[in-house]
Protein backbone atom coordinates (compact mmCIF):
# COMPACT_ATOMS: atom_id res chain seq x y z
CA UNK A 1 0.00 0.00 0.00
CA UNK A 2 2.90 2.26 0.86
CA UNK A 3 4.57 1.59 -2.46
CA UNK A 4 1.30 2.08 -4.33
CA UNK A 5 0.78 5.47 -2.72
CA UNK A 6 4.34 6.59 -3.45
CA UNK A 7 3.97 5.58 -7.07
CA UNK A 8 0.63 7.39 -7.30
CA UNK A 9 2.16 10.59 -5.89
CA UNK A 10 4.99 10.35 -8.43
CA UNK A 11 2.53 10.00 -11.27
CA UNK A 12 0.26 12.79 -10.04
CA UNK A 13 3.36 14.97 -9.67
CA UNK A 14 4.45 14.30 -13.23
CA UNK A 15 0.95 15.09 -14.52
CA UNK A 16 0.65 18.16 -12.31
CA UNK A 17 3.91 19.62 -13.60
CA UNK A 18 2.75 19.12 -17.16
CA UNK A 19 -0.79 20.45 -16.78
CA UNK A 20 0.43 23.44 -14.74
CA UNK A 21 3.11 24.44 -17.22
CA UNK A 22 0.65 24.10 -20.05
CA UNK A 23 -2.10 26.16 -18.32
CA UNK A 24 0.34 28.81 -17.13
CA UNK A 25 2.33 28.78 -20.40
CA UNK A 26 5.54 28.34 -18.48
CA UNK A 27 6.36 28.29 -14.80
CA UNK A 28 6.71 25.12 -12.75
CA UNK A 29 4.93 23.30 -9.95
CA UNK A 30 5.34 20.15 -7.89
CA UNK A 31 3.60 18.11 -5.29
CA UNK A 32 5.68 16.05 -2.90
CA UNK A 33 5.40 14.10 0.32
CA UNK A 34 6.59 15.75 3.49
CA UNK A 35 8.79 14.11 6.14
CA UNK A 36 7.62 10.96 7.83
CA UNK A 37 5.60 7.85 7.11
CA UNK A 38 4.32 7.98 3.52
CA UNK A 39 1.03 6.57 4.74
CA UNK A 40 0.45 9.47 7.12
CA UNK A 41 2.55 12.48 6.24
CA UNK A 42 1.24 15.64 4.65
CA UNK A 43 1.43 16.54 0.99
CA UNK A 44 3.21 19.71 -0.06
CA UNK A 45 2.21 21.78 -3.09
CA UNK A 46 4.55 24.43 -4.51
CA UNK A 47 4.09 26.52 -7.61
CA UNK A 48 5.95 29.23 -9.50
CA UNK A 49 4.16 31.06 -12.31
CA UNK A 50 6.37 32.05 -15.24
CA UNK A 51 8.68 35.00 -14.49
CA UNK A 52 7.89 34.94 -10.79
CA UNK A 53 9.69 33.46 -7.81
CA UNK A 54 8.79 30.50 -5.60
CA UNK A 55 6.40 32.12 -3.08
CA UNK A 56 3.89 30.59 -0.67
CA UNK A 57 0.61 29.58 -2.26
CA UNK A 58 -1.28 32.05 -0.06
CA UNK A 59 0.39 34.98 -1.87
CA UNK A 60 -0.89 33.81 -5.24
CA UNK A 61 -3.69 35.71 -6.87
CA UNK A 62 -7.29 34.47 -6.98
CA UNK A 63 -7.00 33.45 -10.61
CA UNK A 64 -3.59 31.83 -10.14
CA UNK A 65 -4.93 29.77 -7.21
CA UNK A 66 -7.92 28.62 -9.25
CA UNK A 67 -5.68 27.55 -12.15
CA UNK A 68 -3.29 25.75 -9.80
CA UNK A 69 -6.14 23.90 -8.10
CA UNK A 70 -7.68 23.04 -11.47
CA UNK A 71 -4.28 21.66 -12.53
CA UNK A 72 -4.23 19.39 -9.47
CA UNK A 73 -7.76 18.15 -10.15
CA UNK A 74 -6.95 17.31 -13.74
CA UNK A 75 -3.66 15.68 -12.85
CA UNK A 76 -5.62 13.40 -10.49
CA UNK A 77 -8.07 12.61 -13.29
CA UNK A 78 -5.20 11.85 -15.67
CA UNK A 79 -3.59 9.57 -13.07
CA UNK A 80 -6.78 7.74 -12.27
CA UNK A 81 -9.47 8.56 -14.80
CA UNK A 82 -13.04 9.02 -13.67
CA UNK A 83 -15.96 8.63 -16.07
CA UNK A 84 -17.17 12.18 -15.44
CA UNK A 85 -16.09 15.47 -13.96
CA UNK A 86 -18.63 18.05 -12.71
CA UNK A 87 -17.24 21.52 -11.99
CA UNK A 88 -19.33 24.27 -10.43
CA UNK A 89 -18.16 27.78 -11.42
CA UNK A 90 -14.44 26.92 -11.16
CA UNK A 91 -13.84 29.67 -13.74
CA UNK A 92 -15.31 32.44 -11.53
CA UNK A 93 -11.93 34.04 -10.76
CA UNK A 94 -10.41 33.63 -14.22
CA UNK A 95 -9.82 36.50 -16.66
CA UNK A 96 -10.63 36.07 -20.34
CA UNK A 97 -7.27 34.64 -21.42
CA UNK A 98 -7.17 32.09 -18.62
CA UNK A 99 -10.79 31.14 -19.27
CA UNK A 100 -9.83 30.32 -22.86
CA UNK A 101 -6.89 28.21 -21.63
CA UNK A 102 -9.26 26.46 -19.22
CA UNK A 103 -11.67 25.62 -22.04
CA UNK A 104 -8.81 24.14 -24.10
CA UNK A 105 -7.94 21.96 -21.14
CA UNK A 106 -11.48 20.68 -20.60
CA UNK A 107 -11.87 19.91 -24.30
CA UNK A 108 -8.72 17.81 -24.12
CA UNK A 109 -9.99 15.90 -21.08
CA UNK A 110 -13.48 15.49 -22.52
CA UNK A 111 -12.07 12.89 -24.91
CA UNK A 112 -12.24 10.28 -22.17
CA UNK A 113 -14.42 11.80 -19.47
CA UNK A 114 -17.78 13.52 -19.59
CA UNK A 115 -17.14 17.10 -18.57
CA UNK A 116 -20.03 19.11 -17.10
CA UNK A 117 -19.42 22.72 -16.11
CA UNK A 118 -21.78 25.10 -14.32
CA UNK A 119 -20.81 28.54 -15.54
CA UNK A 120 -21.82 32.16 -16.08
CA UNK A 121 -19.00 32.70 -18.59
CA UNK A 122 -19.87 33.02 -22.27
CA UNK A 123 -16.36 31.86 -23.18
CA UNK A 124 -16.77 28.64 -21.25
CA UNK A 125 -20.26 28.12 -22.69
CA UNK A 126 -18.87 28.37 -26.20
CA UNK A 127 -16.68 25.33 -25.52
CA UNK A 128 -19.69 23.16 -24.75
CA UNK A 129 -21.30 20.73 -27.19
CA UNK A 130 -24.49 20.63 -25.08
CA UNK A 131 -26.17 23.22 -22.87
CA UNK A 132 -28.69 22.80 -20.07
CA UNK A 133 -30.63 25.99 -19.38
CA UNK A 134 -32.14 26.18 -15.90
CA UNK A 135 -34.74 28.77 -14.90
CA UNK A 136 -37.27 29.52 -12.20
CA UNK A 137 -40.33 30.90 -13.99
CA UNK A 138 -42.56 29.74 -11.18
CA UNK A 139 -41.07 31.29 -8.00
CA UNK A 140 -38.87 28.84 -6.11
CA UNK A 141 -39.36 26.00 -8.60
CA UNK A 142 -36.50 25.02 -10.94
CA UNK A 143 -37.15 23.97 -14.48
CA UNK A 144 -34.98 22.71 -17.33
CA UNK A 145 -35.89 24.85 -20.33
CA UNK A 146 -33.48 23.73 -22.97
CA UNK A 147 -31.07 20.98 -23.79
CA UNK A 148 -29.33 22.22 -26.87
CA UNK A 149 -26.81 20.19 -28.81
CA UNK A 150 -24.47 22.62 -30.43
CA UNK A 151 -21.89 21.61 -33.00
CA UNK A 152 -18.94 23.84 -32.12
CA UNK A 153 -16.46 24.58 -34.88
CA UNK A 154 -12.93 24.73 -33.53
Amino acid at each position, binding site marked *: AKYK*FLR*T*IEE*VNKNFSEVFSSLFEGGEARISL*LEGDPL*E*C*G*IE*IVARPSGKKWLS*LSLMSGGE*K*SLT*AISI*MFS*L*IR*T*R*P*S*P*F*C*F*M*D*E*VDAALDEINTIRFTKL*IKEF*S*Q*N*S*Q*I*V*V*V*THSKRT*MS*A*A*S*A*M*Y*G*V*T*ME*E*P*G*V*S*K*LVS*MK*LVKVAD
Partner: protein
Amino acid sequence: MHLKELTLKGFKSFADKTSFMFDAPPSVSAVVGPNGCGKSNIIDALRFVIGEQSVKDLRGSSLDEVIFAGSSTRKPVSLAEVSIVFDNSDGHLKTDYSEVAVKRRVFRSGESEFYINKNLCRLKDIKDLFLDTGIGNGAYSIINQGQVDQILSSKPEERRAIFEEAA
Protein backbone atom coordinates in the same frame (compact mmCIF):
# COMPACT_ATOMS: atom_id res chain seq x y z
CA MET B 1 -18.69 3.45 -18.58
CA HIS B 2 -20.47 6.77 -18.69
CA LEU B 3 -23.37 8.71 -17.28
CA LYS B 4 -26.63 8.51 -19.25
CA GLU B 5 -29.22 10.28 -17.17
CA LEU B 6 -29.71 12.16 -13.89
CA THR B 7 -33.25 12.69 -12.59
CA LEU B 8 -34.36 14.91 -9.70
CA LYS B 9 -37.80 14.86 -8.06
CA GLY B 10 -38.62 16.88 -4.94
CA PHE B 11 -34.90 17.55 -4.50
CA LYS B 12 -34.24 21.09 -3.30
CA SER B 13 -35.73 23.54 -5.82
CA PHE B 14 -36.60 20.77 -8.30
CA ALA B 15 -40.13 20.20 -7.08
CA ASP B 16 -41.18 18.52 -10.32
CA LYS B 17 -39.50 15.49 -11.88
CA THR B 18 -36.67 16.81 -14.07
CA SER B 19 -34.31 14.65 -16.16
CA PHE B 20 -30.91 15.52 -17.60
CA MET B 21 -29.66 13.32 -20.46
CA PHE B 22 -25.90 13.15 -21.07
CA ASP B 23 -23.91 12.36 -24.20
CA ALA B 24 -21.18 9.72 -24.15
CA PRO B 25 -17.62 11.06 -24.34
CA PRO B 26 -16.26 13.09 -26.01
CA SER B 27 -18.61 15.49 -24.27
CA VAL B 28 -18.48 18.95 -22.73
CA SER B 29 -21.79 20.20 -21.31
CA ALA B 30 -22.56 23.57 -19.75
CA VAL B 31 -25.25 24.19 -17.12
CA VAL B 32 -26.37 27.81 -17.31
CA GLY B 33 -28.99 30.13 -15.84
CA PRO B 34 -29.49 33.09 -13.50
CA ASN B 35 -28.37 33.26 -9.87
CA GLY B 36 -30.46 31.03 -7.63
CA CYS B 37 -32.19 29.10 -10.41
CA GLY B 38 -30.95 25.68 -9.26
CA LYS B 39 -27.69 24.88 -11.08
CA SER B 40 -25.66 23.99 -7.98
CA ASN B 41 -28.62 22.00 -6.69
CA ILE B 42 -28.02 19.62 -9.61
CA ILE B 43 -24.43 19.11 -8.42
CA ASP B 44 -25.78 18.48 -4.89
CA ALA B 45 -28.19 15.90 -6.34
CA LEU B 46 -25.29 14.03 -7.96
CA ARG B 47 -23.35 13.96 -4.67
CA PHE B 48 -26.50 12.87 -2.87
CA VAL B 49 -27.28 9.93 -5.14
CA ILE B 50 -23.73 8.52 -5.12
CA GLY B 51 -23.95 8.33 -1.34
CA GLU B 52 -22.70 11.62 0.13
CA GLN B 53 -22.77 11.31 3.90
CA SER B 54 -21.81 14.83 4.84
CA VAL B 55 -24.83 17.17 4.96
CA LYS B 56 -22.34 20.03 4.98
CA ASP B 57 -21.26 19.08 1.44
CA LEU B 58 -24.92 19.27 0.46
CA ARG B 59 -25.05 22.79 1.99
CA GLY B 60 -27.57 21.76 4.65
CA SER B 61 -27.44 21.25 8.40
CA SER B 62 -29.66 18.14 8.29
CA LEU B 63 -30.48 15.72 5.49
CA ASP B 64 -34.18 16.58 5.31
CA GLU B 65 -33.20 20.07 4.15
CA VAL B 66 -32.73 18.68 0.63
CA ILE B 67 -36.46 17.95 0.35
CA PHE B 68 -38.40 20.61 -1.57
CA ALA B 69 -39.58 22.97 1.17
CA GLY B 70 -42.28 24.68 -0.88
CA SER B 71 -42.42 28.18 -2.36
CA SER B 72 -44.88 31.06 -2.49
CA THR B 73 -46.94 29.03 -4.97
CA ARG B 74 -46.27 25.44 -3.87
CA LYS B 75 -46.60 23.30 -0.80
CA PRO B 76 -43.60 21.36 0.55
CA VAL B 77 -43.31 17.70 -0.41
CA SER B 78 -42.54 14.76 1.85
CA LEU B 79 -39.66 13.11 0.03
CA ALA B 80 -36.74 13.85 -2.29
CA GLU B 81 -35.66 11.36 -4.91
CA VAL B 82 -32.65 11.35 -7.23
CA SER B 83 -31.78 8.63 -9.71
CA ILE B 84 -28.77 8.20 -11.95
CA VAL B 85 -28.35 5.82 -14.88
CA PHE B 86 -24.99 4.56 -16.15
CA ASP B 87 -24.09 2.85 -19.39
CA ASN B 88 -22.00 -0.04 -18.10
CA SER B 89 -21.30 -1.90 -21.35
CA ASP B 90 -17.58 -2.02 -20.53
CA GLY B 91 -18.24 -3.62 -17.16
CA HIS B 92 -16.35 -0.87 -15.30
CA LEU B 93 -18.99 -0.96 -12.53
CA LYS B 94 -18.75 -4.21 -10.59
CA THR B 95 -22.07 -5.68 -11.65
CA ASP B 96 -23.31 -7.80 -14.56
CA TYR B 97 -25.85 -5.26 -15.75
CA SER B 98 -24.98 -3.29 -18.90
CA GLU B 99 -27.17 -0.48 -17.63
CA VAL B 100 -27.09 0.44 -13.97
CA ALA B 101 -29.64 2.69 -12.26
CA VAL B 102 -28.91 3.96 -8.75
CA LYS B 103 -31.65 5.72 -6.81
CA ARG B 104 -31.73 7.41 -3.43
CA ARG B 105 -34.71 8.72 -1.50
CA VAL B 106 -34.77 10.75 1.69
CA PHE B 107 -37.81 11.32 3.89
CA ARG B 108 -38.69 14.09 6.37
CA SER B 109 -37.46 11.76 9.13
CA GLY B 110 -33.98 12.02 7.60
CA GLU B 111 -33.94 8.34 6.64
CA SER B 112 -32.52 7.37 3.25
CA GLU B 113 -33.43 4.48 0.98
CA PHE B 114 -31.02 3.21 -1.68
CA TYR B 115 -31.81 1.21 -4.79
CA ILE B 116 -29.66 -0.46 -7.45
CA ASN B 117 -31.76 -1.30 -10.49
CA LYS B 118 -34.94 -1.04 -8.46
CA ASN B 119 -33.69 -3.38 -5.72
CA LEU B 120 -33.58 -1.89 -2.24
CA CYS B 121 -30.02 -2.05 -0.91
CA ARG B 122 -27.76 -0.49 1.68
CA LEU B 123 -25.42 2.49 1.42
CA LYS B 124 -22.57 -0.01 1.65
CA ASP B 125 -23.71 -1.63 -1.60
CA ILE B 126 -23.62 1.75 -3.34
CA LYS B 127 -20.11 2.41 -1.99
CA ASP B 128 -18.95 -1.05 -3.13
CA LEU B 129 -20.43 -0.51 -6.58
CA PHE B 130 -18.41 2.68 -7.02
CA LEU B 131 -15.22 1.39 -5.43
CA ASP B 132 -12.13 2.05 -7.54
CA THR B 133 -14.13 3.71 -10.30
CA GLY B 134 -13.04 7.27 -9.56
CA ILE B 135 -16.63 8.13 -8.58
CA GLY B 136 -16.42 7.24 -4.88
CA ASN B 137 -17.39 10.31 -2.91
CA GLY B 138 -16.71 12.49 -5.91
CA ALA B 139 -13.31 13.20 -4.39
CA TYR B 140 -11.93 14.86 -7.47
CA SER B 141 -14.70 14.24 -9.96
CA ILE B 142 -17.12 16.72 -8.37
CA ILE B 143 -15.97 20.25 -7.53
CA ASN B 144 -18.53 22.33 -5.60
CA GLN B 145 -19.00 26.06 -6.05
CA GLY B 146 -16.43 28.01 -4.08
CA GLN B 147 -14.44 24.87 -3.29
CA VAL B 148 -11.91 24.81 -6.11
CA ASP B 149 -9.14 26.47 -4.07
CA GLN B 150 -9.78 24.31 -1.03
CA ILE B 151 -7.03 21.83 -1.83
CA LEU B 152 -4.54 24.70 -1.72
CA SER B 153 -5.70 26.20 1.57
CA SER B 154 -6.15 22.92 3.43
CA LYS B 155 -3.37 21.66 5.71
CA PRO B 156 -0.85 19.22 4.17
CA GLU B 157 -2.26 16.33 6.23
CA GLU B 158 -5.85 17.13 5.27
CA ARG B 159 -5.01 16.95 1.60
CA ARG B 160 -4.18 13.27 1.72
CA ALA B 161 -7.77 12.07 1.35
CA ILE B 162 -8.08 13.31 -2.19
CA PHE B 163 -4.73 11.74 -3.21
CA GLU B 164 -5.58 8.48 -1.49
CA GLU B 165 -8.76 8.31 -3.56
CA ALA B 166 -6.53 8.36 -6.66
CA ALA B 167 -4.20 5.69 -5.30
